[in-house]
């Protein structure tokens, strides 16, 4: 984990065009973002605005059509598949909307497999216990995902994302499948991680309340970054996204 301060993630004129048959569909149309180490940044926007694509490019899961994604000094747009895999392993932690825990493994197994991929041997019981303790599920260590509530599954997913001590935690709609109470718990957990461990977090969300927990809010529309002042039509009279 990085100490606060200094640019940890920089996106420069990022573009991504998907080809659907012979038709080109632009998902990102020149995005520029700079995130400091230790920041908690929320990215908000309507469906199809390109925020998930942006997250995938930031995490090295996909290659941009043009532009740059610089993670901790490494330009992902110029790296090979293997180098991006290595970067994901060493610098990035992912939390997904649908938790995506491996169903055949226990909570402990899900954390161990992440560490196994990290390639630093198996974490000791103490380290696993500490990680799972951070998300408040020490008593569920030997449970399988199917035996956990959705909120608990997402907390395990957060713990798994932290196994490799990532420079950046990328959360893709982490509260999208949760009720209000579990959503609040997950957001509190992320805030706590950011506050106490200076964990850099980039969170994508639909939820304006969720978006407010970050230090900074980036709003997107049609593949571009906009702000409230520039895009008032995004928010209705009740302050909710359209």
């Amino acid at each position, binding site marked *: 984990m990085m100490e606060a301060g200094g640019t940890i993630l920089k996106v420069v004129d990022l573009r991504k065009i998907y080809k659907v048959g012979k038709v080109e569909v632009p998902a990102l149309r020149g995005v520029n973002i700079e995130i400091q180490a230790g920041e908690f940044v929320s990215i908000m926007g309507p469906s199809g605005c390109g925020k998930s694509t942006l997250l*995938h490019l930031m995490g090295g*899961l*996909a290659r941009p059509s043009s532009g740059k994604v610089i993670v901790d000094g490494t330009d992902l747009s110029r790296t090979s598949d*293997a180098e991006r895999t290595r970067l994901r*392993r060493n610098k*990035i932690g992912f939390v997904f909307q649908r938790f995506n825990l491996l169903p055949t493994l226990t909570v*402990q197994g899900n954390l161990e497999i992440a560490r196994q*991929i990290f390639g630093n041997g*198996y974490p000791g019981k103490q380290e696993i216990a500490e990680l799972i303790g951070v998300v408040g599920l020490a008593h569920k260590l030997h449970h399988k995902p199917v035996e956990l509530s959705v909120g608990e599954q997402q907390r395990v997913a957060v713990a798994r994302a932290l196994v*490799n001590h990532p420079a950046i935690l990328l959360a893709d709609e982490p509260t999208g499948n949760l009720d209000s109470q579990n959503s609040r718990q997950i957001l509190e957990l992320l805030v706590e991680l950011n506050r106490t461990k200076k964990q850099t977090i980039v969170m994508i969300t639909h939820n304006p309340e969720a978006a407010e927990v970050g230090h900074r809010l980036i709003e997107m529309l049609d593949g571009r970054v906009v702000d409230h002042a520039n895009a008032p039509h995004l928010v209705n009279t009740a302050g909710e996204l359209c």
Partner: protein
Amino acid sequence: MANLPLSNIFYRKTRTGIGILSVALGVSMVLVLVGLTEGSLNEYADRITNMGADILFMAPDSSPFLVLNTGVMSERLGEKLGEVSGVEAVAPVLHWRVTSIKGVKKLVSIFGVDLPSYNRIGRGVEIVEGTGFQGPGDIIVDTVLSTADGLKLGDTLPMMNQDFRISGICKAGAGARMYMRLDALQEATGQPGKTALFLIKVAQGRRVGDVAAALESQFEGYKVTALEGFVEELKDNALGLKQFTRVLSVLAVIISFLVILLAMYTTIIERTREIGVLKALGAGKLYIIRLVMTESFLICLLGVLVGFGLSLLGRALILTLFPTLTVALIPSQFAIAALLGIFGGLAGALYPAYRAARLDPVEALNFE
């Protein structure tokens, strides 16, 4: 310690079970069928070599499979053979076979022998119950046939349009399963004065090879086989045996290949999202390939072990149902069958593993 391949194979138990069973069937098929072939061959070779003769003397172009030969040599040729230097004893044997015993279809070999000369050759007919031949209609059966078909002393056995009486039961493991008087068999089969082979005992102190060479030179064209090399000659002459074994081996590999290919292919499709997650966590292509291959290896390994168990079970079942058959489960065949099962399975897992490794992480994560 998290073991994803191990936990995966226990997750879909039915599919894993079918995969294991299919590999096991391939393995046991190789072991039991090859074992049955080899076993029958070895048992036959053992029974011939256990007679104690040193040399088999047969008509030109005869087969080491005595069942294929018939009486084409004059019985009197034995006298001339006895005159060859180094020959201690000669016993004529006429071979025949019947295809049913008490109405039950089975191939049973019969030796027509002159007991005194046959017994001089070596082990001879070791009577364990009853007596030798008391008359031309008497027969002797060995203990295996007696047990398998419930044949007892004094029983009448109709064969070759005649009724024969069981006068004795002999120890199994040498010669034929059934014996009758040479003249009786010659009469019954319409080959008076004829014999199919001569068993020859070499005098003590004389080398079998030298005597065999002397016989070959004096009786040109006749087939002279030293019993020492009989097993090898038998296997060399077992037309199609090697091909049969190879076909079985190829079949076992193909079965393992196809089953594992299908099982792992469907697994990969089902686990597409999980593979996406692993890639998001930083798993490289090699890690994914290793994961799929390890899972396949475990299924194949379990399949091989179950296959070994099935083979032992199959052998026991065959021996119970058909006591006169022999299934030789040869240690080297276990190793070959294991390698075939595992090799076939791993080959089948290669394409699914490659496909999994090449999955686009974003597409995999969005897979429904």
